[in-house]
């Protein structure tokens, strides 16, 4: 394993953990609001869709001198709005109309890729959309042009971590941790999710708070989806390949707490990085006898997720709940 490859690996490892954390935080907010977030996969796709559509729309402006990083920030905001709007479909259905949350969730998971295909097809006539070519920061623009391309530092900084959008994403991670633990909204969300009747008796607007939780979750997951598409793909085709569900597993493993979710995300981003870099890491078995042996490593994060689920599920207790007067 060369030093440049190690740098690239670490770069991808850190970069991919950021959208994972964001998406898991999105799931955390939604589940703290008492809604099981099966729709997260769909929200991720919609976030990526809106962000990429806006970002590609700004491409001509960037070419004519508009700041490229500002365009990325606008795209991120658009992705958040897109994810938030899509999660309204979940929040309204579950919190207002008391529809079955699992069915609504899987419906949104089906609708999102179809919506992606329809919107992308009507924009550029293709099934894929390119992930912003201008988003990456070049070494010369921040005064590191002299750095040799095969050095560790160069591959660490400019393989996957070369986007200023990352900084905003990290800030969002910190802000949402603060919201959960230090803000009035965070406490109220907790109270309303755990015991709506008690919260209502204190005069808290329960429906509004829970809806706010679902909306915040949607915004975070949408931004996470956009950042994920930027990092993991050259052109995105509307299939997040289970990243949303892996984020749900991370959230369960992290016990719905920001700190633990961050650690759990690092674990999963390690396995995702392994599955991405498997063909170039020499000491991993290459399964040369099997055609397309690299695909075996794609099983890794999924199987780890299942194992994590096994060890983090509590036994089911069926008992009579206390009567409510």
């Amino acid at each position: 394993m060369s030093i440049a490859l190690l740098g690239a690996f670490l770069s991808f490892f850190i970069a991919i953990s950021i959208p994972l954390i964001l998406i898991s935080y999105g799931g955390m907010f939604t589940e703290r609001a008492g809604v099981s977030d099966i729709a997260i996969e769909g929200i991720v796709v919609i976030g990526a869709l809106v962000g990429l559509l806006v970002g590609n729309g700004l491409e001509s402006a960037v070419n004519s001198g508009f700041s490229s990083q500002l365009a990325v920030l606008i795209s991120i905001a658009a992705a958040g709005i897109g994810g938030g709007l899509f999660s309204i479909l979940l929040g309204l259905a579950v919190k207002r109309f008391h529809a079955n949350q699992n069915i609504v969730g899987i419906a949104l998971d089906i609708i999102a890729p179809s919506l992606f295909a329809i919107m992308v097809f009507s924009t550029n006539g293709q099934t894929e959309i390119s992930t912003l070519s201008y988003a990456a920061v070049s070494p010369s623009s921040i005064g590191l042009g002299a750095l040799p391309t095969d050095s560790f530092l160069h591959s660490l900084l400019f393989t996957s971590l070369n986007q200023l959008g990352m900084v905003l994403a990290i800030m969002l991670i910190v802000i949402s941790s603060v919201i959960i633990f230090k803000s009035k909204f965070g406490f109220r969300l907790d109270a309303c999710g755990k015991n709506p009747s008690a919260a209502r008796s204190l005069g808290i607007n329960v429906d509004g708070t829970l809806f706010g939780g679902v909306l915040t979750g949607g915004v975070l997951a949408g931004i996470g989806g956009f950042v994920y598409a930027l990092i993991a793909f050259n052109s995105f085709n509307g299939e997040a390949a289970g990243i949303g569900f892996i984020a749900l597993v991370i959230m369960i493993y992290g016990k719905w707490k920001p700190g633990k979710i961050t650690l759990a995300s690092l674990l999963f981003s390690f396995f995702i990085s392994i599955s991405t870099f498997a063909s170039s890491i020499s000491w991993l078995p290459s399964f040369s006898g099997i055609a397309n042996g690299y695909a075996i490593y794609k099983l890794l994060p999924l199987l780890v997720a299942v194992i994590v689920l096994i060890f983090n599920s509590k036994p089911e207790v069926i008992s009579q709940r206390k009567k409510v007067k």
Partner: protein
Amino acid sequence: MNSKNNTPKNKRSLWYRFGQSERLVSFSSTLVSILAGLLVALVFLLITDAGSAFAAFGKILSSGFAGTSAVFEFIYSSAPVLMLGLAFSFTYKAGLFNFGTPGQYISGACIAIVAATLWNSPWYVAVVLAMITGGIVGLIPGLLKAYFNVNEIISSLLFDWVALIVAFLCLTNITGADQTISGASLITNMGLSNLGEGFSASVIIAIVIAVIVYLFLEKTAGGFELQAFGSNKLAAKYIGVSRKKQIVIAFVVSGAFAGIAGAFTYLAPGASIYQPQLIHLPSLPFAGIAVSLLASGNPIGCIFAALLISYLNMSIPAMSGLGFTRANATIIIGIIIYSSAFIQLTKSWVRSLNKKHFFTWLKVTIGDFNAKTYKALTGIVRDKNRKDPLDDEIVEIANSTMGNVRYSKNAEVTTNFIKHKDLEKESKVIEIDLSPAAKDLDTYKANDLANEDIFELKRNDPKNKGGK
């Protein structure tokens, strides 16, 4: 409605009797789901290409009846989607969600293709192999749910991608590019090839299985035990149903059905070739979920719902000809599933139509209007000093759920969701079962959906009248 003379006039009306028939209301709310799906599809067609949108919408509506061969085609191509609908129904009836049908479908298809190309096994052997494989793949989330209480939704969704990757590895290594299936490996068309090129016995087998599943679920003790946990966990535990056994059985049978569906899709004469890949899950299993939800899990209903979905799918080739993507057809399925989740809401809406109390329904569902909107919608000027009769109705129902029953004639309106901002305490959403069956009892059951708490209320109990 025992004797016509004793029944009040308003209860003799056709609308009233329509509202009292659970089946008709269910059927109408299913239609509402389908209409919603079609309308949203039209909106997206207009967004994509306004010029040819109505032509494409016409294709969606008419492709299945484009000729005799088209009619036969949509009927016999409904077999896989019917099996997938039955697969989802089987777990749905047991109170579980098997979103792993795509994975089980792929693994069934994979083993059937391997059996047909590599071993040239006859079709029935391939179908049985697909059934066993699907059952094994279904067994995994079932076992995890039964013994570790792993959330079956997440685990089964994760196994979809596991199955997709394993099938990719399996097919690229074993069969390679050559997947032509011929001779005895194709499902027999029983000498009826003049019905259509792709006709096979699979549709008949699928319908027979649907009837068997219906008989099992509705007429046998085993079926009752399976459904017991779906309807009432506590009661099921009380009568001694083994939860673990039921979960495992439900998932294995469900997986087996999905596996059969995989074999039916790719062993049919003239079927398309499965393209092994790592990204896209097939969309047909999700159509199966729509089938099951449209039929509320009823296996006989699944037959008709499968015909409908198959009918809608007939439009895909014609739509691509008009410059639309496949996604325009898939989104209909997504919207149908989405609106199926609102089944209680649509039912109450359908009932509100027949009772001419649509605006009450709107008010309790959407929220209170302000006086201006209310006037615009109903033409009634709301006087703050004079109480609105519609308000009375809501207050009555809300009161009844607090144990403070003032049961009035008005409260007979079957409103499933009550919300009233003026009543601070009662601002909970409560479902009241006012079905004819419950009316005969002396007690009403009100299920608080938000808390899943169950409590009983006495009706017309003089002790409860006039406050706590």
